[in-house]
């Protein structure tokens, strides 16, 4: 493989084997066109940083929004172009000297991430929701000046001056770039770097809410510390796997794991014999990924961070991170560790079960809509894990489909959450949502559609996704998981229904929140969410086809 070629180059350069003639340095081959989506996003992100430096404050917002949207759209176009060019199927291969896999899942997930990010960015750019609070300045969801202390004079001054944190746009782009690489990573190093690239901007994004800044900062601290903690685990796992296989390339590790490796030098033979390295390493990498996915018991950051982060960020994070992380998880389990399936399947079974049940049960007693959606996302992670465990091609495609369906619902739902506001900003406490259906039937109805999709009611995308995943799981011999999934769906239904009851059947409170009339930006987000929800619910065949065509990993 090309990766080893590169590495042996370095090895030789180190002079370990001086007997062999020194080869001529070969420039690495980088398939720029195939990496175009990532490169576009990163490039524009860098430009965005420059914009912050050089463009006058007044024009920054428009420039940034324009650049971000264009970047994401262009990247998406590139993905579509690649897919149309057959890179998802026949021409799938490993690019960038073994670092990146360009194949069906990669393109599908990149497409999903780019689209969800695009819609999510619309909510980032929304500036009409909070007009009354800050006088003449139009404001968005982000702090005027994140560095100023909450409640301090400098903050007030920043607000008065009409500052806005337009840095969020380049940050989002960096994060998206990381996410695009994450599921495509074909060696452990790329995996790690991508993880950090998409995580670090997210930590920052969490911290920059305009309202409830203390909570926002707290969310960021928690997310950061725990995220760093988990990446340490991931990295140690990487070290152990590398120790076991002598390589970080997925393909090589896979060959070593299932024993089909051809050349065995003594050192490799030595470490290969030590299964503990493999098992512990694998488990620790899983830990890192399960953390990102939000699976129990690595989920505990989720509610706090979802609640504290600015809602547009939450929506983006909940949707895109999950897609990227599951993509990476899939690739790890299907490409690197299939030989270890007998070991990780029972463990993942257990994780899936407690994730489904835990998420659903704890959600019952939640009183904050964002926390509720956080727990819901945990339960959904459990459902997706059920599909992951199927270990069949169907499993891959069902997970891909589920991720696509889920991410749009999530972005849409959080977009609706940004609309319901009172004097303190977003009114996220559930009691404030009482009677929303009376006051703004349309918003409530839209949110109900999202909730029903979360609950997996037929004719919504949630049902199609859930059905696909459960079907794959049952086909893959995980019937028990399906039963647990069904039970936790029932439990989960309870709290989704509770919100609907609250919105429609409770009398509106006198001091209840108002529903802001958003700009076309947020409207677009919500409309896309609803449209995708219904289309994937009523006529999912095209997308299922897409997912199943994309359901093959290249090795």
């Amino acid at each position: 493989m090309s990766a080893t070629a590169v590495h042996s180059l370095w090895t030789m350069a180190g002079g370990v084997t001086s007997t062999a003639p020194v080869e001529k340095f070969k420039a690495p081959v980088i398939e720029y066109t195939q990496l175009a989506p990532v490169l576009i996003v990163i490039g524009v992100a860098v430009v965005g940083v420059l914009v912050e430096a050089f463009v006058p404050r007044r024009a920054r917002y428009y420039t940034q929004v324009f650049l971000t949207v264009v970047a994401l759209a262009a990247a998406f176009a590139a993905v579509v172009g690649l897919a149309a060019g057959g890179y998802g199927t026949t021409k799938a291969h490993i690019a960038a000297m073994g670092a990146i896999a360009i194949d069906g899942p990669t393109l599908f997930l990149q497409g999903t991430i780019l689209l969800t990010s695009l819609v999510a960015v619309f909510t980032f750019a929304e500036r009409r929701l909070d007009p009354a609070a800050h006088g003449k300045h139009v404001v968005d969801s982000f702090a005027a000046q994140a560095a100023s202390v909450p409640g301090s004079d400098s903050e007030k001054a920043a607000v008065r001056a009409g500052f806005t944190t337009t840095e969020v746009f380049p940050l989002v782009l960096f994060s998206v770039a990381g996410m695009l690489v994450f599921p495509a990573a074909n060696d452990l190093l790329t995996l790690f770097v991508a993880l950090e690239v998409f995580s670090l901007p997210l930590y920052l994004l969490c911290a920059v809410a305009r309202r409830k800044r203390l909570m926002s900062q707290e969310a960021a601290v928690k997310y950061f510390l725990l995220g760093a903690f988990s990446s340490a685990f991931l990295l140690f796992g990487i070290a152990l796997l590398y120790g076991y296989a002598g390589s970080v390339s997925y393909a090589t590790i896979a060959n070593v794991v299932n024993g089909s490796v051809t050349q065995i030098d003594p050192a490799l033979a030595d470490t290969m014999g030590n299964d503990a390295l493999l098992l512990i390493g694998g488990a620790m990498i899983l830990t890192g990924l399960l953390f990102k996915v939000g699976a129990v018991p690595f989920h505990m950051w989720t509610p706090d961070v979802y609640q504290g982060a600015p809602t547009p960020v939450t929506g983006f994070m909940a949707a895109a991170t999950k897609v990227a992380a599951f993509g990476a998880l899939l690739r790890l389990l299907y490409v690197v560790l299939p030989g270890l399936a007998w070991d990780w399947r029972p463990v993942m079974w257990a994780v899936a079960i407690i994730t489904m049940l835990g998420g659903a049960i704890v959600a019952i007693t939640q009183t904050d809509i964002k926390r509720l959606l956080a727990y819901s996302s945990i339960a959904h992670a459990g459902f997706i894990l059920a599909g992951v465990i199927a270990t069949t091609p169907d499993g891959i495609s069902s997970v891909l489909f589920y991720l696509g369906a889920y991410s749009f619902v999530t972005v849409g739902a959080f977009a609706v959450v940004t609309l319901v506001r009172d004097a303190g900003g977003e009114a996220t406490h559930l009691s404030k949502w009482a009677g929303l259906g009376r006051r703004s039937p349309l918003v409530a109805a839209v949110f109900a559609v999202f909730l029903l999709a979360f609950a997996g009611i037929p004719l919504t995308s949630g049902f199609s996704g859930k059905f696909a995943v459960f079907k794959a799981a049952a086909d893959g011999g995980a019937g028990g998981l399906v039963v647990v999934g069904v039970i936790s769906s029932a439990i989960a239904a309870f709290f989704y229904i509770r919100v609907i009851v609250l919105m429609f059947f409770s009398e509106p409170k006198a001091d209840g929140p108002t529903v802001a009339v958003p700009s076309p930006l947020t409207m677009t987000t919500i409309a896309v969410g609803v449209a995708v929800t219904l289309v994937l619910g009523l006529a999912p065949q095209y997308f299922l086809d897409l997912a199943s065509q994309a359901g093959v990993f290249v090795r």
Partner: protein
Amino acid sequence: MSFPLLTATAALPAIGAVATAAVPAARRTAAKWLALVFSLATLVLAGIALARFEPGGERYQLTESHAWIKDFGVRYELGVDGIGVVLMALTALLIPFVILAGWHDADPLETKSSRWRPTQGFFALILMVEAMVILSFEATDVFLFYILFEAMLIPMYFLIGGFGDRAHTGSDENAAAQRSYAAVKFLLYNLVGGLIMLAAVIGLYVVAGTFSLSEIAEARANGSLSMATSTERWLFLGFFFAFAVKAPLWPLHTWLPNAMGEATSPVAVLITAVVDKVGTFAMLRFCLQLFPEASKWATPVIVVLALISIVYGALLAVGQRDIKRLIAYASISHFGFIILGIFAMTSQGQSGATLYMVNHGISTAALMLVAGFLITRRGSRLIADYGGVQKVAPVLAGTFLIGGLATLSLPGLAPFVSEFLVLVGTFSAYPAAGVIATTGIVLAALYVLVLYQRTMTGPVKAEVQGMADLKVRELVVVLPLIALLLFLGVYPKPLTEIVNPAVQHTMSDVQKKDPQPEVEAAK
């Protein structure tokens, strides 16, 4: 390609629902008329379907088949057998009455809000339910059926929770709480049932690889699809559980009295006369056809549960103080009969059960709607608040009595035919069960007559004084139903002719033959 009649029958009310919902807030009455017109047009289409159906022909007729979700092995497959077409027609028949009866049920109490359009919503939801129910009677694809089975819960849920009976005791908040409790209970019970069925649906796919009823049946018949006994049983239980919740069968019944009590009468009719029929219908179509062996295996338990439902429902009906809850428990008792008839697995039992679904739909509609008219007048659901109504409103009392007599299966009225068939069918297979079920007829008389006595007879209560008799709109609702009850009681042949062949198909699915009369068996 011929005209997709079945699709049209289901699509029409769906379109109607959208159209009704789109009517501006101020044009309330227009929305009502629009809904009524759509429901009547649906009735016409259903009538055409009924007329086009040839009892002696193919098992499934008017079929349509289109690719839908290939990956799930799902096709958009429609077709009706005798049972389906009859129930479809019943649904189409009842909805105009439901709409007419609920004409004022969703008028907004205050007219100041311009965006809140309850009336439009109410009628749109009713039409939505109609569309889904009709389609579920037509679906010959398990997945398609499942989707509708679940999806219809949502409009039903909003109908129950959003439009409660305005006659209630206690404070408004209390009533609202009760109502949302009932709605949530309805939804959760049915959702849990549905989700368990989902597991079984997936299991079925894993085993069979398709959801097409005809393909599965064919594969089972020619032996290319064999299920392990335990698999079949688990799948059967998954399906049956969902249907038993919907039907509802004891002890899964407790959502029904709440839902029927809190909903407006037309919605209560919608629940018990239309939506719940999907459950019993599905037992006949899916449980027996897909899992014949498991059905036979489970029969003893189901028969016992059905018997408990019959007796228990009737006894609880006697003990109720709320008119609508009483009718709800009576319905539980009746559903016991239907399920008993289905699982007796005799021609008479199953024909009876099918007729029972139709007749119960009509008779409960009649009784419940009149009860609703009564309740609206007095503003109370409590039996004790009434007395002597027949003196002031004789026509109301008379129609109520006829509805009641139909409920207690008086010969000459339609329910008698079906109930007797069920009893005979059960008796010939399980004599003891038949005898126990017969006590249901005494208990039915008890709760109906007690209800009638306490509300309609005796001295005229002060609050009842001056109660108006039925108005023209209400008569238009009630009289056709009563006429139908009489007609089908005297001449049920048109129905039985359509139903019989379908029942024979089902009987051959489960490979059951009617027990021979002793005298002939001896020969």
